[in-house]
């Protein structure tokens, strides 16, 4: 044909091998489980969750059982005590024998009121995880919804919503948090609500900025010309493309919330006694750090590991959800 471009020489394109058409979630899990760090982090998180649920049942003690005769016992664990560590000695005295608890084992020791620290630790992990998870979820839901609407619709609504955020941001977080906790009286619910309210503005701004960029891209325009509804455009075209940054923010906000709760415990606005959180445990231990270092070290080490695990999981999740990281 004269009407067509003709190729002088043409070789066949390299044969393509078929790609399995797995569902999205299966692909995501496959990629996530290839990431060793993320899997280890996830295993650690799982261990903490199991401890938080089952720990108090296996320890044989309660978190608020006060027994002044067994104050400040160091950790003692069956089996391991033969290795010369965790054998209940302080200096070279076996405190358990000295106080007449020769047959007992407190895995993480006891505090100054004689409460079993392992049980308290498990309860603390439970409360801290709940606070972290729910406030991160709140942060994500409010921030994403606010940011999407503000960025996508633009104009007047955007202007109003942004001014609102600026006003909120103008008030220092600490002031909001302390005021709210005082008004709502200390407790887990009020801490969660406060945390959710204090953190979402950052997420909303990030989501809005990304939405402003994404709504002008050609694939969003293409969706519009194909008659796709606004809701679908928001959740299929825009949201998946900002998911990775939202996940990173959410994963960072879990430690953020736990830290904030720990801080509130420090100033006495946290979880009220006798309940415990990771923050309040560290705070209690800190008061006798020089005499009984284990009281602070153990929860602090687990706290640090938990933060690390959450961050690694966040990175792994972000990569797993991003198909552009995936090769054929």
């Amino acid at each position, binding site marked *: 044909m004269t009407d*067509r*471009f003709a190729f002088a020489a043409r070789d066949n394109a390299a044969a393509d091998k078929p*790609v399995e058409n797995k569902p999205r979630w299966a692909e995501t899990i496959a990629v996530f489980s290839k990431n060793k760090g993320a899997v280890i982090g996830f295993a650690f998180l799982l261990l903490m969750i199991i401890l938080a649920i089952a720990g108090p049942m296996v320890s044989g003690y309660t978190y608020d059982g006060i027994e002044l005769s067994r104050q400040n016992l160091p950790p003692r664990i069956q089996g391991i005590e033969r290795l010369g560590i965790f054998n209940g000695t302080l200096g070279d005295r076996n405190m358990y024998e000295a106080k007449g608890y020769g047959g007992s084992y407190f895995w993480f020791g006891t505090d100054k009121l004689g409460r079993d620290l392992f049980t308290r630790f498990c309860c603390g992990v439970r409360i801290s995880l709940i606070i972290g998870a729910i406030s991160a979820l709140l942060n994500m839901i409010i921030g994403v919804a606010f940011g999407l609407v503000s960025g996508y619709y633009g104009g007047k609504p955007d202007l109003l919503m942004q001014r609102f955020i600026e006003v909120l941001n103008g008030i220092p977080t600490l002031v909001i948090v302390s005021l709210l906790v005082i008004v709502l009286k200390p407790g887990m619910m009020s801490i969660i609500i406060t945390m959710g309210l204090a953190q979402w503005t950052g997420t909303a701004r990030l989501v809005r900025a990304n939405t402003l960029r994404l709504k002008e891209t050609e*694939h969003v325009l*293409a969706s519009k*010309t194909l008659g796709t509804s606004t809701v679908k455009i928001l959740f299929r075209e825009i949201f998946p493309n900002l*998911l990775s940054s939202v996940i990173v923010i959410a994963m960072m906000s879990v430690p953020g919330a736990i830290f904030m709760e720990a801080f509130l415990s420090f100033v006495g606005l946290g979880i009220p006694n006798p309940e415990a959180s990771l923050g309040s445990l560290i705070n209690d231990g800190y008061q006798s750090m020089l005499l009984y270092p284990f009281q602070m070290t153990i929860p602090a080490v687990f706290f640090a590991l938990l933060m690390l695990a959450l961050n690694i999981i966040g990175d792994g999740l972000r990569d797993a959800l991003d*198909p552009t990281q995936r090769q054929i």
Partner: protein
Amino acid sequence: MNTVNDNILEVRDLKQHFRIDRRHSVKAVDGVSFTIKRGSTFGLVGESGSGKSTIGRTVIRLYAPTCGSVKLNGRELGGKLTLQMKQYLTGRVQMIFQDPMASLNPRKKIIDIVAEGLDSNKPRGERNELVYAQLERVGLSREFAGRYPHMFSGGQRQRVGIARAIITDPELIIADECISALDMSIQAQVVNLMKDLQTERGLTYLFIAHDLSMVKYISDYIGVLHMGRLVESGTKDDIFQNPIHPYTKSLISAIPEPNPLTEPHRISRVYDAPAQGIVYANGTERYLTDTHMVLATDGELETWIA
């Protein structure tokens, strides 16, 4: 043939002004008229910023026009759109985009990208079969359906874009610089594909480009756009054999010649509207023949023809 069937698209005095702030606005398109015959290709050329994309996007109603009339199959689509008219438009006009990467959602599989135009309540099996058929039609294997856009070359991605546009069986396709991001041999493949689809399905193209040589190859009619105004339009021969407007002449003189002996002697003509005293607002549309239109005043037309 009556005019309603003959002309698929009639654009009359279309204006698109973007408001920058209370006092300023950009007149991206400023009174443009043209008609496109069913089954033909209308090439729209002009320099960057002349308003080509804006015209395409206004026709498909990504932007609401400031004023003017847009008639599709004789139905007025220029004013406020009812939901019904919007659906009418969506079913008949589709678009192929410029950037083969940005026009495909990187988070979606090819199968879902191509199927987007189908009613989502189509049964899954039927939908998938339709997608495979389109993919194979544009020269991609059905094995590609489960992949993501980043796993493709630019030319392949543009084919996906074409498959997405044709799956709803449109009558008019607006191709906004759909080949300018591709290299020469791939451009040729994609243009060949578009031509084949045109003969097969009787498609009409509004082909937007800034490269006159490619427009010459694909178009039946050509419109030359400058600063938001159509300065000359006509059949391919009108424009290339008998260019009148100095801007058109300058564009044509800028096409490199394939002959190495004559190319060094090619003279590019400079065009500078203010220096040559041309004010578009003064000109009116003058028809030299049935098809050949030039935007000019009486005096200008005389000097240009002479």
